């Protein structure tokens, strides 16, 4: 069953959007580890792309095929695998590329699976809708250095 608990939502500002930090974080990713890194691609507007980014982080095949029509199915896959592999924390890189609706879907994912959600994004590059979404879910701010230290 999905673990429903009170997950933590964190916002981490990468003031330089530094390639080095992203590389270090991605290098630490592992499908079996409790911390899952999700890299958001530019132009991600559909919820299915975010779900597939999570599945990619879990080392699952994600191509563009017929199932792209169903974001609900992709999210169901992501929730099932994240729960089964014992993922405790999901770190979303380049989260400033997400729309407010995608942030909402990520929060739903975190609530239903009981994982901690951390969004890494560039400050001052967010829309009003994004800021509203983050405020609505009560994201707390954390330091990038802390995350890098935990990922190392």
């Amino acid at each position, binding site marked *: 069953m999905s673990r429903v608990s009170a997950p933590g939502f964190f916002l981490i500002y990468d003031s330089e959007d530094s390639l080095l930090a992203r590389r270090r974080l991605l290098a630490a990713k592992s499908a079996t580890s409790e911390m899952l890194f999700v890299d958001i691609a530019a132009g991600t507007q559909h919820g299915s792309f975010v779900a597939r980014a999570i599945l990619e982080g879990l*080392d*699952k095949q994600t191509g563009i095929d017929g199932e792209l029509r169903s974001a609900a199915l992709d999210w169901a896959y992501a929730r099932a695998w994240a*729960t089964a592999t014992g993922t405790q924390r999901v770190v979303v890189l380049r989260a400033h590329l997400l729309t407010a609706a995608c942030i909402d879907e990520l929060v739903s994912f975190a609530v239903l699976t009981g994982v901690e959600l951390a969004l890494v994004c560039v400050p001052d590059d967010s829309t009003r809708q994004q800021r509203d979404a983050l405020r609505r879910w009560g994201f707390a701010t954390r330091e990038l250095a802390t995350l890098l230290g935990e990922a190392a």
Partner: protein
Amino acid sequence: MSLHTNASPILDASTDAVPDVDWTLFRAELLDLTDAELREIADEEYREGFAVARHWFDRDDIGQLDDVATFLVAQTEEFPPALQIARLRGCQAGAFAAGWHLKLNPKQLLGELGGGQRLATWNMRVQSALRRIRSPLLPGVAVALLTPDVTLDDLPLMCVDDLAERDGHVMIRVGGVWLAPPEEGEVYLRSYWYWRLEGCDQPGAPLWQSSYGMYIETKSFRPLLKRLTLLTGEPFGTFNQQRRIRSWSRRGLSCLRLRT
């Protein structure tokens, strides 16, 4: 400047050649292979069958039909049933390229060749084939079938309620007995279980028939088994397992030298 006109198509008989149009149509229509990855697996077997048969049939006299039958048996018997037909068709095309018209009835020949006798087992190849599949359905069903003492006949009778967590492990109930899946496969079964529960499937819903996926309209689980067989190379299911045929020439095979 010269213009290339009247260029005739060149038959590329190398092993890397794209399978011919007959095979392309055959695999789409009869094998119902619409998945690109499965097509690639079947094409690979087809190409290998083509190359071996082209070499073997590169002679003027075949001799006895039994020799051809023996060759075909050797080319296919080690393979799971769903791959046998790909190799058989490849052999047929290879023989044709070498100047022999191999007339065969795959359904009857594959009945003669057998297959499906060996039971699928958990191994590294299976694990690597299942590891990256996005939908939990296929890996979940595979692990259920690979659980010791679970047979193919059990699968249609199993329901969601036959999966449960016991002592920290996901287990399967068959005939009232709880069985442990292969250790490495437990995560796949667990994922499938979560998926079914989250999809609000009823406890009595068939295990193989999920309401989340495309398979809800499937009336049998044979397409699942075929996909598993092609992906893993292990014999899931008993395709083409029919009564044995005594005479090759009478029912399933003939070989004719093409005019050169």
